[in-house]
């Protein structure tokens, strides 16, 4: 809501020296938040005066343009009293017209300094201004010609024209619909000065005598009094369709952020801004028979003012005449009865509408209008007659019309609402000491009538406060008037807490582990599209293609919630590579969305707690959202440098990182080779803990690297972190270890290339017996000496007994037993 300060002052006697800054700040602290403060016209300086065109000569120019060399009477404003010679490019004025002249030394908006200058063979000493140059409107077709009675030549234009003002733009919250009007803003200003200042008299623009409804009014029938509880109609005939909108009114409409259009339209908008009540004007000559307000018939058509053909729903409220719907009640009028430049007979409609219906209709037809915005938030139902009367007054005064004696009123405003609260409720909720008298006077200040009975009070809510419905609403009113700045600062007495949950602690551990291992955490948007999944090389049946899709995605290319963290990580890796950072190790922990067949989530009642079953139904409707860990490692994992060459990232980094995380959580994992997109078919490990599949890691398929634009041999992993966290060891048992000497045995085993290191290692472990302390693979050899299709795996076995020093015989026997099992299970042959 944009409120010119001059307009606010019409309704409240604010101190003369009050600045807009000060008022805006005070109202912000009262709940009308300052959004912006503008000072139109304040960057314009004179001499800016009225002038009368005494004569002019039209001079065609070689560029095809015609200019007028004018002599303009500006009286003594130029210091000489002689006519001022000015070149003007506009042709829309006549000798004798009153115009606005800026003389040399003046400055127009935007720092445009005026000086006498030579142009088109004359010395032009100033400029005749257009409305746009003065920021009084958009009109730049010609210069501004003022009404003959606007003033005298030489008059200071700042005193004649509404050039300067201060406009406070407020952000109005949905509950303060009454402040979408000057009436409401001024009321708040008056309230502020009544409470925190010396008081300021408020003049309610809606408080005016109005004629009684009578039988001569335009016939109106309202079928749905719930949808339209009040309908007031007045009529003005004999309007001059050419009558211009007075400059002051156009200026105010413009400053309030709307566009002046024509007198009749401007007046309805002006009164809406003034009182906050939307108004519709019909060209009465185009109405066919009586007006009827009803719900639309499903599928009915209406062409609205914006020339859109709308198919109506049975929930829409429509205003009809004998021709059918002529307006979407309270939201937008229809094209057939629209006021135009030939309208001489206007029917003014001011009606109260059901806010819920307004909201739904607005949303259904995607229509936002100044009227709809107010109607869906709730307007004062007691002022339609006043608003209609004000429109009639202005049409008569500025349009030369005649007020028709007929006054139509159907329905009536609902009885005022009452709310009863404990007198001390505001104090109890706010924590501020508030005396009972203060509570009462605060509520009275916002317009309530208050009756106190014992320790209870009953407030009768003023009709413009449609937002006040609950006891706590009254608390807010009292507290904002007492002052939010008076709320003391007290720490609440929380009971002893249990700290972070197990999962919360473990997730921190995962992040720290990976950061410690050189991985950088990133965040990605969870949106994904078919193309992203195609680039991963997922086949048609891959479960990761079953996505939850958004009804209103920001991008049609990524309309769904992702099932895997890899697309986001790969995009990020590619973005880094594009910025000269190809060597990256990235990780992300985030939930993925795995939809399953589910019914709708119920919309439950809100006047009670849902039952356990109902609550469970909400969760059942939601997709599974497990927390995943994804990581991508590309380029050089270890840098090259003065110490020697670097090491390229590979499958082992991805697998190693997953193992590292598992180790940090105390989870024993096994890996085995599998084939799965988007990984290299021969370099993908499945990571499990017993029966639980945790995820996959390895080098990416070359096609995937190319598709995502990441370096060749980029490796990646994705793990179900929730599953991993479930397995994490809560309390680590302390190890027991022997202090007797260790015995080492190295064995080199030749096996077929297809046999995995893990299999051989497991065989050694199983065969070595209790004396085995550890097994570590320290070399892999695939060459001539191993033989075709074979490889040599060198393991170091460490043996130790808890109670004695092992003998050479014991150690050898254990080693031989280990090798024997490896030979039996894996066909391993010990190299000499």
């Amino acid at each position: 809501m944009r409120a010119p300060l001059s307009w606010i002052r019409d309704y409240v006697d604010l101190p003369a020296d009050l600045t807009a800054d000060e008022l805006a700040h005070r109202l912000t602290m009262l709940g009308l938040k300052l959004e912006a403060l503008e000072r139109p016209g304040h960057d314009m300086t004179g001499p800016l005066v009225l002038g009368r065109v005494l004569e002019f000569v039209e001079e065609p120019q070689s560029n095809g343009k015609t200019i007028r060399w004018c002599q303009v009477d500006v009286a003594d404003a130029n210091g000489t009293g002689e006519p001022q010679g000015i070149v003007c490019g506009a042709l829309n004025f006549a000798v004798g017209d009153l115009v606005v002249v800026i003389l040399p030394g003046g400055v127009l908006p935007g720092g445009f300094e005026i000086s006498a200058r030579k142009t088109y063979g004359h010395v032009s000493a100033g400029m005749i201004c257009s409305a746009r140059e003065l920021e009084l409107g958009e009109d730049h077709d010609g210069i501004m010609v003022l009404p003959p009675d606007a003033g005298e030549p030489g008059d200071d234009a700042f005193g004649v024209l509404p050039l300067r003002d201060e406009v406070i733009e407020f952000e109005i919250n949905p509950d303060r619909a009454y402040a979408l009007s000057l009436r409401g803003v001024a009321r708040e200003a008056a309230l502020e000065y009544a409470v925190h200042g010396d008081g300021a008299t408020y003049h309610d623009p809606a408080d005016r005598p109005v004629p009684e409804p009578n039988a001569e009014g335009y016939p109106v029938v309202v079928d749905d009094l719930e949808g339209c509880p009040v309908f007031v109609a007045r009529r003005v005939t004999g309007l001059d369709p050419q009558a211009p909108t007075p400059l002051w009114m156009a200026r105010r409409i413009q400053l309030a952020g709307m566009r002046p259009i024509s007198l009749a339209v401007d007046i309805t908008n002006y009164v809406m801004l003034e009182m906050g009540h939307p108004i519709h004007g019909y060209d009465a000559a185009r109405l066919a028979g009586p007006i009827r307000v009803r719900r639309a018939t499903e599928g009915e058509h209406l062409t609205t003012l914006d020339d859109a053909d709308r198919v109506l729903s049975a929930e829409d409220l429509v205003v009809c005449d004998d021709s059918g719907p002529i307006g979407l009640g309270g939201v937008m009028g229809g094209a057939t009865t629209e006021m135009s430049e030939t309208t001489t007979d206007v029917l003014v409609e001011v009606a109260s509408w059901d806010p819920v219906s307004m909201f739904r209709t607005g949303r259904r037809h995607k229509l936002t209008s100044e009227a709809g915005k107010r109607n869906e938030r709730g307007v004062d139902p007691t002022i339609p007659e006043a608003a209609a009367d004000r429109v009639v007054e202005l049409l008569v005064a500025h349009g030369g019309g005649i007020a028709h004696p007929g006054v139509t009123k159907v329905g009536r405003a609902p009885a005022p609402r009452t709310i009863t609260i404990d007198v001390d409720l505001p104090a109890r909720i706010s924590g501020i000491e508030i005396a009972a008298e203060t509570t009462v006077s605060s509520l009275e200040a916002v317009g309530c009538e208050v009756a106190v009975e014992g320790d209870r009070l009953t407030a009768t809510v003023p009709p413009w406060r449609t937002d006040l419905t609950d006891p706590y609403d009254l608390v807010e009113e009292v507290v904002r008037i007492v002052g939010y700045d008076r709320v003391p600062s007290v720490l609440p007495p929380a009971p002893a807490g249990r700290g972070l949950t197990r999962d919360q602690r473990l997730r921190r551990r995962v992040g720290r582990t990976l950061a410690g291992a050189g991985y950088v955490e990133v965040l990605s948007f969870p949106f994904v599209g078919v193309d992203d999944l195609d680039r991963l090389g997922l086949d048609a049946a891959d479960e990761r293609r079953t996505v939850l899709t958004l009804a209103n995605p920001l991008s049609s290319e990524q309309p769904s919630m992702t099932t895997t963290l890899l697309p986001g990580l790969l995009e990020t890796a590619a973005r880094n590579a594009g910025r000269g950072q190809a060597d990256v190790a990235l990780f992300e922990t985030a939930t993925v969305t795995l939809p399953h067949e589910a019914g709708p989530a119920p919309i439950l009642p809100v006047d009670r707690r849902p039952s356990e079953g109902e609550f469970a139904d909400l969760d059942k409707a939601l997709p599974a959202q497990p927390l995943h860990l994804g990581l991508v490692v590309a380029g050089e994992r270890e840098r090259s440098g003065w110490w020697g060459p670097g090491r390229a990232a590979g499958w082992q980094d991805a697998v190693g990182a997953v193992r590292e995380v598992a180790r940090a959580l105390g989870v024993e994992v096994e890996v085995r080779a599998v084939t799965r997109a988007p990984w290299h078919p021969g370099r993908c490990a499945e990571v499990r803990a017993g029966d639980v599949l945790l995820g996959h890691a390895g080098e990416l398929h070359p096609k995937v690297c190319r598709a995502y634009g990441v370096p060749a041999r980029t490796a990646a992993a994705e793990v179900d972190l929730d599953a991993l966290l479930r397995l994490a060891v809560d309390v680590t048992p302390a190890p027991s270890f022997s202090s007797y000497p260790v015995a080492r045995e190295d064995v080199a085993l030749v096996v077929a290339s297809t046999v995995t290191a893990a299999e051989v290692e497991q065989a050694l472990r199983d065969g070595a017996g209790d004396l085995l302390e550890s097994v570590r693979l320290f070399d892999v050899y695939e060459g001539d000496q191993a033989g075709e299709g074979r490889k040599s795996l060198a393991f170091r076995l460490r043996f130790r007994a808890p109670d004695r020093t092992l003998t050479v015989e014991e150690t050898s026997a254990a080693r031989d037993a280990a090798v024997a099992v490896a030979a039996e299970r894996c066909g391993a042959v010990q190299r000499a």
Partner: protein
Amino acid sequence: MSGPNSDYDPVEVTPLKAEEVEAMREAALAAIAAAADLDQLKEVRLAHAGDRSPLALANREIGALPPQARKEAGQRVGQARGAVNQALAARTEVLEAEHEERMLVEETVDVTLPVDRLPRGSRHPITTGSELIADVFVAMGWEVAEGPVVEAEWLNFDALNLGADHPARTMQDTFWTEPADHHVVLRTHTSPVQARTMLTRTPPIYVVCPGRVFRTDEYDATHSPMFHQVEGLVVDEGITMAHLKGSLDHFATAMFGEGIDTRFRPSYFPFTEPSAEVDLRCFVCRGVAGEVETCRTCRGEGWIEWGGCGVVNPRVLTACGIDPERYTGFAFGMGIDRTLMFRHGITDLRDIFEGDVRFAAAFGTEI
């Protein structure tokens, strides 16, 4: 090798003459002193203290002396050998020290060589910032509550007094999922976690809920379809706005330093009544006259808009099964991204989401 010779006259055994032993000793000591390095000393040791050295040979002869001569000869040779060994030990020590000294000089390296073989990892400031915030509240005895991102419409809106026809629904531009009649949304705030908490616990409730939220905002320097919020919820007997103010002041101080408190302005949220905007005292100029006017952080306001808060609307308590006659509560919420943006001077929101490694790396593993 000779055995003992009892007929021998000691005075006639040439090598055991005093002056000869003396000469051997002098020769040994001179050689020791002359040894320039450990290698030379090794040779000297062999020559003058080894098994074949003159003194060793002399020592061997002692047994062949007549008993009356043995004592004196033994003493003489023993003293000489002792002196030589001492000299050797002393010289060894000196030469070893010299050697080490030299080695240390030779082993000098350029310690300014870069040692960045393994790149450094880091956690995202949103993660560590969320943890920092959580820790502030956990230290007060609160707990950290969480909930799903894809959420039921009823929990995201209706339970929070945001019915389908509430004009405030349009304040939060919502991502809806298909099919639309399934009433499932991407949560627009972390408030459904509050609803879930109230539905699954009994008061006293003291929780903070950090998490990702979604709105259909086009992505630019100050807007993102995904961002992060932290909300707090307290439901207990006798809770007032003063407790809300106290908690937020404490939070502000913990995040921005001593003397940084908050200010309330009346506002509107369907889930709270009374509602307030919470402003943070500018942590740069602190609103001090003379500095505030030119402060870029708060643009001369002295205060920075931080978030929203209020007393939990009794309608919300009712929908979540908490008796509004017995309990009151407060709630607040603010953007984590926004909080970190001004705490750390992040000027472009996109830096948080684009994953440029230089961004997170700057923050390291803690914030």
